């Protein structure tokens, strides 16, 4: 009972978070499978007809199609990594911070930009260095 509940919760969280990646990966595998099937059919057909004129070219085309599909997949997932649901929340956050900055100067603005924050010990060491 508890195990099923945990599994369902994790699956739903996983699905909501990575829906676009899961779907695009599924489409990629479908595409690769389809290309492979088409090529296999062509190879069988050429063997039946004993016509091997374009067989080598068909392999080149197949691998070009594979590489093209994978490149499109990588480009789509690296250029648009966020799902649709995440974009409005990020936009909202940015709007909120901008409006806050307009109203009152945000004391944490500089901290947000910093790559690594310094601890009390770091400040003490810095003062002693000076």
């Amino acid at each position, binding site marked *: 009972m508890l*195990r099923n509940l945990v599994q369902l919760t994790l699956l739903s969280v996983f699905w909501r978070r990575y829906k676009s990646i899961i779907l695009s990966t599924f489409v990629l595998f479908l595409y690769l499978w389809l290309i492979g099937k088409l090529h296999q059919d062509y190879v069988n057909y050429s063997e039946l007809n004993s016509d091997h004129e374009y067989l080598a070219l068909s392999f080149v085309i197949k691998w070009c199609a594979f590489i093209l599909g994978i490149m499109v997949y990588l480009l789509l997932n690296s250029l648009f990594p966020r799902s649709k649901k995440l974009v409005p929340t990020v936009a909202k956050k940015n709007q909120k911070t901008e409006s806050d900055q307009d109203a009152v100067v945000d*004391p944490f603005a500089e*901290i*947000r930009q*910093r790559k690594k*924050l*310094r*601890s009390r010990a770091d400040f003490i060491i810095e003062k002693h260095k000076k």
Partner: protein
Amino acid sequence: MNPLALVTQRYQSAIREKAIKRAETRIIIAGRTPQDFSAEDLEIVVQEEEDKIKAEIKEKGLLAVLALLGLSWLG
């Protein structure tokens, strides 16, 4: 564009935002406002909160792994 770098950047900024929120709450509970503090003091407070969050994540991650093993997830 490195997708892994994007993920880590988003992860870092989410932790930073959470730490800032916690620092603000801590300051308000103490009866002060963030404007009362210098930039250095605010940085120290946020840094402390960030360390706490990271420690919590590590602890929770370990618990999650133990829970998964205990529940025999794949069995």
